[in-house]
């Protein structure tokens, strides 16, 4: 030091910088592992929730994106490296009936049911599930382990070269903007204060909302979440603006002017476009924050159930919300949507479970008998359909001179009719009890009673009385309005009675919509579909009285098929009745199954 002080100091500086640089390399490696861990969690969640980690890619895109390849490699390594864990409820893939890969099971959030009891809210005070913490730590160890080094290096390279379709903004500050057409991160321009920038832009969104400048809000919202992809409230409120406030002043688009958009799997007008924009915004949020129940809840309840009246998708996302740590109302909305799709058994089982967790809960106490009554009504309708079929066969037998067989068929039909009556009586008794035992009466039970009574009157030929009852009922129970209105139209047509102006208008609109459909075939996922006015059904080209499997929103098969092949959502989104082929098997989808008919 005394002889060569400059040399010694230069060496010391070099050592200091080298040690710092080496530590910087270690920190960078940790950050890359952190990004890789997030991607593993996101990709696993996407596989579980959406059925696939990437959209169905074709041609050059399929070759470019490496998500599936990389994820498969990580899954294979995880099978070798991660300790075994038991297969639990929710770990089974509905599409295949087999457990998810170990990595997917590890990253699934473990729920211990609602994390709050009725009347409480706020997630901040709730501790994470200890087993979940253990599993996360295990995956985090795995993500930065030497055994996964090649995959991690490929991940970093693919991310840099924009070859990961699933790598959203959650990956990291610098990496976010590599997805954009900018060579460097705009996040760096904020010197690390991008979250503040996001917050300040969000205040602008709020101001624009107050001024009614909706057109300014959307780009500002997108910029906000680009700067801060973990700003979950921005996704929630942004989607609410899109689905509710933006559409509040919009007129409804008549059905015949709506356009079928395969990407959405639905016929859309202006309002629906905004609803799907909200859904996509929330899905982006899920991609970036795969473990926040609020995003799944808003997607399922606020958008799909409330706005799009698509309870099948609502069930999908609300189910996922209940798998995360969630508030107690999430489960209640799931059971309502299960009921709306006709899955009464599942809904009742859910309400029973809910009542066990929240003893004396008034809604659960009401919904258990409601679903029981709905099951009886459904079974009664099925028996009625069977009886009608037997009566038709009996009439045919009688016409063919087979009196004995006709009499036997009529006897069988009579038996079914008696069973039907018994079921309906049981349902009626449940609804009557519900209505009587609820302080201000149970609107839903009352509406069902009126409906059953109107249908009976109509069957007895007393259609005018049935119509009077329904017209009064729809005014008294607002949620029964549309169902009652449709029943009125059907009864009037069957009894050849005149319709009033609004009913004629409604009918005309539906007819015009169907005529428009009939005139123009639709191409969906490379298949042509034609609408048959006579059968009120969409047929895939090539269909000619093949044997079909019947699917309704309530069937478990449909849930499995949808998860396995998301393209089915595009087919069944065409209409209430659709015939389509999949892997050599023909399916017949009926949205309005039992309760749409009288």
């Amino acid at each position, binding site marked *: 030091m005394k002889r060569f002080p400059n040399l010694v100091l230069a060496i010391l500086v070099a050592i200091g910088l080298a*040690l*710092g640089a080496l530590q910087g*390399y270690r920190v960078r490696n940790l950050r890359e592992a952190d990004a890789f861990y*997030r991607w593993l*969690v996101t990709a696993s969640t996407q596989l579980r929730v959406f059925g696939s980690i990437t959209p169905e890619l074709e041609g050059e895109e399929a070759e470019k994106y490496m998500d599936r390849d990389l994820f498969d490699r990580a899954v294979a390594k995880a099978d070798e490296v991660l300790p075994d864990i038991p297969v639990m409820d929710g770990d089974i893939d509905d599409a295949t009936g087999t457990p998810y890969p170990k990595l997917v099971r590890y990253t699934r959030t473990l729920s211990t049911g609602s994390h709050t009891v009725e009347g409480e809210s706020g997630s901040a005070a709730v501790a994470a599930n200890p087993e979940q913490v253990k599993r996360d730590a295990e995956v985090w160890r795995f993500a930065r382990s030497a055994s996964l*080094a090649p995959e991690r290096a490929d991940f970093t390279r693919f991310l840099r070269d924009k070859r990961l379709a699933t790598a959203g903004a959650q990956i990291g500050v610098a990496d976010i903007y590599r997805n954009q057409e900018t060579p460097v991160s705009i996040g760096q321009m904020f010197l*690390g204060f991008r979250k503040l920038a996001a917050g300040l832009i969000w*205040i602008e969104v709020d101001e624009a909302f107050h001024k009614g400048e909706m057109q300014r809000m959307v780009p500002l919202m997108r910029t906000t979440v680009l700067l801060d992809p973990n700003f979950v409230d921005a996704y929630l409120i942004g989607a*609410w603006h899109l689905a509710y406030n933006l559409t509040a002043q919009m007129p409804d688009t008549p059905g015949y002017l709506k356009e079928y958009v395969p990407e959405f799997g639905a016929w859309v007008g202006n309002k629906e476009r905004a609803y799907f924009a909200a859904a996509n915004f929330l899905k982006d949020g899920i991609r970036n924050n795969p473990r926040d129940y609020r995003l799944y809840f808003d997607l399922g309840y606020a958008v799909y159930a409330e706005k799009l009246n698509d309870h099948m998708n609502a069930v999908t996302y609300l189910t996922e919300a209940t798998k995360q740590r969630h508030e107690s*109302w999430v489960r209640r909305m799931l059971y309502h949507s299960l009921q709306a799709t006709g899955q009464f058994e599942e809904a009742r089982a859910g309400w029973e479970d809910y009542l066990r967790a929240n003893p004396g809960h008034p809604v659960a106490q009401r919904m258990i008998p409601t679903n029981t009554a709905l099951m009886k009504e459904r079974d009664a309708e099925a028996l009625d359909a069977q009886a009608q079929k037997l009566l038709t066969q009996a009439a045919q037998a009688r016409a063919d001179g087979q009196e004995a067989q006709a009499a036997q068929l009529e006897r069988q039909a009579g038996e079914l009719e008696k069973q039907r009556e018994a079921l309906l009586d049981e349902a009626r008794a449940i609804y009557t009890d519900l209505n009587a035992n609820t302080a201000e009466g149970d609107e839903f039970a009352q509406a069902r009673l009126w409906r059953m009574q109107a249908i009976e009157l109509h069957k007895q030929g007393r259609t005018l009385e049935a119509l009077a009852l329904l017209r009064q009922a729809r005014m008294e129970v607002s949620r029964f309005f549309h169902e009652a209105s449709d029943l009125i139209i059907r009864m009037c047509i069957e009894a050849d009675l005149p319709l009033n102006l609004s009913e004629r208008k409604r009918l005309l609109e539906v007819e015009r919509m169907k005529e428009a459909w009939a005139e123009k075939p639709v191409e969906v996922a490379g298949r042509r579909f034609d609408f048959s006015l006579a059968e009120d059904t969409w047929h895939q080209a090539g269909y000619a009285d093949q044997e079909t499997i019947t699917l309704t929103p309530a069937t478990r098969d449909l849930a499995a098929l949808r998860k396995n092949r998301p393209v089915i959502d595009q087919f069944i989104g065409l209409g209430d009745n659709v015939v389509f082929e999949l892997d050599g098997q023909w399916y017949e989808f009926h949205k309005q199954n039992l309760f749409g008919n009288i």
Partner: protein
Amino acid sequence: MSIWLASNPWLTSLYGVIVLAILASVAYFTPWSIALFTFREGLRKKTLIGFLILSILVIFGSMFMTAMMYDTGGTVATDVDVKLIKDICITAISIFGVLIAIFISASVVPTEIENKVVYTVLSKPIRRFQYLLGKFVGVQIIVLVNLLLMGVLFSIALYVKEPIFPRMLLYAIFLTYFEFLIVSAFTFAVAAASTSAVLPTIAGLFIYITGNLTQYLESVVNRSEVSENAADKALGGLAWVLRNTLPDLQYFSLKTQILGLQINDTPKDIQIPNLAVYGILYALAGYIIAYWVFRRKEL
């Protein structure tokens, strides 16, 4: 090799030993009287008090900024106001904290040269590296006290909105300090070569800004990789050296991430101590440069 460097437990232990040795040396060699004197001098500086008052205003002002935001009134409660308070406060702490760190690091040595106090001090039986160490430690005490004060105020502002102990805030403040430590050390090195506080102050701001932009160099490296031009390759090589040698202050953006910790975030128990070590090692390099410059200074 690369994965060995990145996650070898022996290397981690070696780093632990080095950091402990540095801290022990600092504790042993620091003339605490100089450090305390520097701290007391620093407290008297009006500029620092001004920055502190401004940061306090911003921290409490953040509560009013969110007060007029629209209440969604929907079924899902939102935490936008809490998030905004966190972001505004941590930004205020970062900006005013780094300004305090830069101004104090830039001025302690040049002011003593200007006042000629340094001649009196160095005439005592004290070595130059110790004098510098005392000054540097004094600066760090000032930075730490200011940071803690702002942190306490931030906690109060946050607690008023959300009555939960802000544990993550402690980690965020802890990380912020090590970011300041790097900026402060290199500013101190420039100040050691200077006779006035103006140049080191400008240099400190430059260090802070460039430290946040070193990731730009990575895109230069990436683009040079696909180029056939020799000049581009050379430029890419230079960018690679700089990228891997200069401190990257963006690493400390983890502080904003842990403040709004999401359930899908990774455990941060490894990243935080690694960043602390990163800060200490670059601070050591900065201090050695400062001494290298200062030991040849004619005083």
